[in-house]
């Protein structure tokens, strides 16, 4: 079921809050009341292994040892918020940059995901987002230049494409670039995932 959130009515009438559909960020915050665990970066090359169903973030955060940033090892889903730096109107500019990245594998199918029906990335970019989602690490290192560019709301998809094409490793096995984002390989390479 798609959640709703009450906001002030645009017409200023006194009919109670207007119910707007809530979309969820698949690379969201861990500390929101609604935050859920989407997956764990325990797969090959640090890719995300997804949960069959949502688990409250609060139930899992305590398992992550002190000194480890939870968003390095887990992916959380939380409500999209108007104050997000990546938001432009009802769109997410982050997924526009993420979909510029290469898909790691020639996959015809997409990972099963409990969030999909509510996911902003899915609603906006469809399967092209789902193909790239497992490679996304929410918290990345500054040494990872590509991840830093993707994280920057000022970066345009065109700039990313140009950067990938000009990177020493080239565009990778597929036309649109290297294989993952924010993985350990990326950090060690310093310039590309």
């Amino acid at each position, binding site marked *: 079921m798609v959640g709703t959130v009450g906001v002030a009515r645009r017409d200023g009438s006194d009919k109670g809050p207007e119910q707007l559909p809530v979309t969820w960020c698949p690379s969201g915050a861990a500390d929101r009341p609604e935050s859920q665990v989407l*997956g764990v970066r325990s797969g090959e090359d640090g890719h995300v292994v997804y949960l069959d169903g949502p688990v409250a973030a609060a139930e899992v955060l305590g398992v992550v040892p002190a000194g480890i940033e939870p968003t390095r090892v887990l992916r959380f889903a939380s409500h999209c918020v108007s104050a997000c730096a990546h938001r432009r109107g009802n769109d997410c500019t982050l997924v526009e940059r993420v979909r510029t990245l290469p898909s790691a594998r020639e996959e015809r199918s997409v990972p099963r995901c409990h969030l999909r029906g509510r996911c902003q990335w899915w609603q906006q970019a469809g399967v092209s987002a789902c193909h790239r989602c497992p490679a996304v690490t929410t918290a990345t290192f500054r040494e*990872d230049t590509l991840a830093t560019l993707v994280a920057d709301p000022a970066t345009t998809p065109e700039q990313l494409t140009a950067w990938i094409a000009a990177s020493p490793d080239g565009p990778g096995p597929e036309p649109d670039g290297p294989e993952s984002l924010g993985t350990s390989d990326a950090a060690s390479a310093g310039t590309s995932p």
Partner: protein
Amino acid sequence: MKKNRLAAGGAAAAIAVGLAVGAAAPASAAPAERIGSMQELHAHVAKAVALESTQAGTLGDPVGQKVTESVES
């Protein structure tokens, strides 16, 4: 009628071949791994933490939600 029977037979043969090919075709890539229980979740977190412990770097901006002001939907 004869022509129709042939057509029907051909269709049946085609279906049979299709089924045979389908049965003989190798299974596609193994289903992606999933986490179906809290026990599995804890095991995966432990694995991810072990992997993360080998990494070093300075945390930058998130490739994810970045709230700049109040948190309102």
